[in-house]
C-alpha cells in the first residue's frame, strides 16, 4: 500500500493507533487522507474493539520526518469521527505483532525442509496435503519477512498477511480515556 517504495528505517517508522467511530465511510476518510496528502502507509489494520461494535481501532504503520509524522497525527485527529490518535513508537515500549498465513507447494526434500524451518520459527501447520502446507505464524513483521523469504526458496508460495497490530506495554489504557 506504500505510496513510495523507499524502505522505512526504524528511526522514522511510526506505529500509530487511531480510535474511531465505527461508521460507514470512516476507513475511506482515513485512507483518503493518506493518499490525498501523499503520506506513506506501510500497513493498515482495522477492527471493531468494543462489544457493541461502535468503536474501531485502526493501526497504521507509516513513516516520515518528524514534521510529517506530526502532520499525519494532527490531520488524523481532526477528522470528525476520530476519537484519539496515539503514536506508539513515540511513546516508547510497545508490542507490534503481525500474522501471516503462508502456503507452500513442495515435495520431497523441500517439503521436509519447509516443515523443519516452520518448526524453528514456531509456525503452526493450519492445513496440509501431500504436496503442500499452510503455515500460520505470528510475530514481528521482520520475523515474518524472514520466514517468507525462506519459504520462497523452497517452493511456490502464496501468502496472506494481516498487517501490524500494536499495543502499549504497561498498565496505561489508551481507549479508556476516549
Amino acid at each position, binding site marked *: 500500500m506504500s505510496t513510495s517504495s523507499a524502505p522505512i528505517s526504524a528511526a522514522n517508522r511510526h506505529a500509530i493507533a487511531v480510535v474511531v467511530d465505527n461508521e*460507514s*465511510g470512516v476507513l475511506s476518510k482515513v485512507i483518503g487522507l493518506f493518499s490525498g496528502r501523499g503520506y506513506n502507509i506501510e500497513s493498515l489494520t482495522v477492527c471493531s474493539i468494543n462489544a457493541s461494535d461502535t468503536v474501531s481501532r485502526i493501526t497504521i504503520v507509516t513513516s516520515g520526518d518528524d*514534521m510529517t509524522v*506530526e502532520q499525519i497525527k*494532527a490531520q488524523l485527529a481532526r*477528522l470528525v*469521527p476520530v476519537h484519539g490518535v496515539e503514536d506508539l513508537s513515540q511513546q516508547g515500549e510497545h508490542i507490534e505483532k503481525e500474522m501471516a498465513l503462508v502456503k507452500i507447494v513442495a515435495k520431497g526434500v523441500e517439503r521436509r525442509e519447509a516443515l523443519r524451518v516452520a518448526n524453528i520459527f514456531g509456525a503452526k501447520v493450519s492445513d496440509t496435503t501431500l504436496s503442500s502446507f499452510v503455515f500460520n505464524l505470528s510475530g514481528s513483521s521482520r520475523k515474518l519477512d524472514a520466514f517468507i523469504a525462506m519459504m520462497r526458496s523452497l517452493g511456490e508460495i502464496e501468502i496472506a498477511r494481516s498487517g501490524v497490530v500494536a499495543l502499549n506495554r504497561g498498565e496505561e489504557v489508551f481507549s479508556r480515556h476516549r
Partner: protein
Amino acid sequence: MSSSSLTGAEVVVKALIDQGVECIFGYPGGAVLPIYDALFQQNRLRHILVRHEQGAAHAAEGYARASGKVGVLLVTSGPGATNAVTGLTDALLDSVPIVCITGQVPLHLIGTDAFQECDTTGITRACTKHNYLVRRPEVLARTLHEAFSIARSGRPGPVVVDLPKDVQFALAPYVAPDNIRHRTYRPPSTPDARAIVQAAEALLVAKKPIIYAGGGVINSGDEASRCLKSLVDTTNFPITLTLMGLGGVPSSMRQFLGMLGMHGTFEANLAMHHCDVMLCVGARFDDRVTGRLDAFAPNAQKIHIDIDPSSINKIVRADIKICADAGLALKELLRVWQSLAQDKKTAQGKALVRWWQQIDEWRKRNSLAFRADDKKIQPQEAIRRLVQATQHRAVRITTEVGQHQMWAAQHFPFEKPRRWMTSGGLGTMGYGLPAAIGVQLAYPRELVIDIAGEASILMNMQELSTAVQQRLPVKVFILNNQYMGMVRQWQELLHGGRYAESYTASLPDFVKLAEAYGARGLRATKPSELDDVIAQMIEHPGAVLADICVDQHANCFPMIPSGAAHNEMLLGDEQQAEVSDDGKMLV
C-alpha cells in the same frame, strides 16, 4: 423522542427552522422532491432558486461569511451534488460554515448505478469537513443538528448530509437541536495559559515585531477583531493581514501595513522578511503568503495561534504554538500583556521607534502607486473611484478571481470584518456573483458589489437571473480588460509573452446581456465617464452590470514571482526579473 407524525422531509424543514436558518439556496430534482414539497407547505424558510448548483454553494458561502451564520444549500442527487463540489471545496479551503443537503436515490437502489445516482459521500469526502449518508429515519434529526454543530465549531467548514429519497418519505422522529453535538468531536478553544505567557514575553523583548493575521480572526467573531485592534493599539506593533483577513483590523489604523504576500505591499513583505518576532494569528502560512519558504522571515521567532492543530507546524515550524480560538487567545494575550512590567515596555518603545523608521522608509516607496491616465481607465483608478463613491455607505464587496481581485484587495479599504468576501484558498472564478447574492440576502439594505473580471463573471453569469427574480440589487463592477489578465500577466513573466488562450474574443455585450436578464447594464470606456457610471450603478434600485472597459495591458504589482522571497518583489517599474526554474514549476 417527540412527534413521529413527521416525514423525513418535514423533519428536514423543521430542523432547519430550529437551527435559525432563514433562507436556503437550492435547485430541485427527483431525489429532493419530498423536501421541496415540504418547503412548499410552509412559509418560515425562504428558498432561493439558483440557476446552477455551484451558484447555490457560493451563495451559501457568501451568506455565511457576511452574517457569521451557517449557510445552507439543497441540491438533488447525481448532477446536483457534483455541481456543488466546487463550492464545497471552496468552503473547505476558506473555512466557511455551510451545510449541503443532497438528495440520494432510495436505499435499495444505492450501488446499482440508478438514474442520477452518484457516490456523493465518496465524491465529497475530500472536500468536506465531514459528511453523512443518512440510512435510518431515526437518526435524521440528530444528524442534521450535528451537521450544523460541526460546520460552525472549531475551524468551520462544509458538511454534506446525503438523504436517500425513501428516508425523506419515511416517518421520522424529531428531536430539537438543544445540546446536540457530536459524541466525541471537541475542537480546541481556550489557549494554554503558559504558552500565552511565553508569547507575551517573546513579544516584549522583540525589537522588530510584526503581527500577521488572517481569516481565523474573522471566523472567530467580532470580539477577536476588537482584541486584535486593542493589541495593536497598546503594543504599537505593525500588523499585516492576509487576503482572507482583510477587515480584521481597520485598514485606517496607522499600524496597518496592508496585505502581505504575492501581491502584498512592499512594506508588509519587507517587514515580514526582516522581523525578529512574528505573531501569526489565524493564518496558515499559505504559499501565496510565504513565497520561497527557505527565505521566509529567516530570523524570526514565530508564534502561531490557530484553532486547527494541523495548521501549526505544517509549513513553517512555530517556536510557540497556541492551539486555540483566535479571539480567546488574543483576549488572553492582551490581558497578560497589560500585566507585564512597564519598564520593559518603555525600553521596547525605543527599539520600536527605529523599527517604525525603517518601515516608514519602505512605505515611502508607495508600492501601490499607479499612473492614472485620461484616455484609458486604469483598473486601480476605477476601484479608487468606487471607494470614493461608496465611502459613506455600508458596503460589502465580493470578487471573482484574477487581477481585479488583487487590485480590489490592495485598493479597497475595509474598516470592519465580514465586509470582504473573496475566494482565497481555491481561487474560484465565478465565486463573486453568487456570493454577492448570498451577502445581499443577509444584508438587504446594504450596498453589495462584486468586483469582477470579464472572464470570471461568465462562469456563473446565469445567477444574474436569480438576483433579478429575488429583486436583489447586487452590483457587478466588471473590470473588463478582455484578457484573463492574471493569466496574461504570468505568460508575460514566465512564457515569453506568448498569450496562449488568455484573450477572449467574442465577449458578449455586457450591457445587452444585463438587459436580457432584466437587469440594468452600464458602460464606461473613458476615465471621464467613470464617476457617472458608478453613481448610476449605486442609485439604480435593482441589479446592475457595469462594464468598465479598462486598460488591457495593466499588470498587478507589487508581485513576488513564484519561487521568490519576500525581499525579491517586482514593483512594476524595473526590468523584469528572471524566474527560477523551480519557480516556474509552482502555480
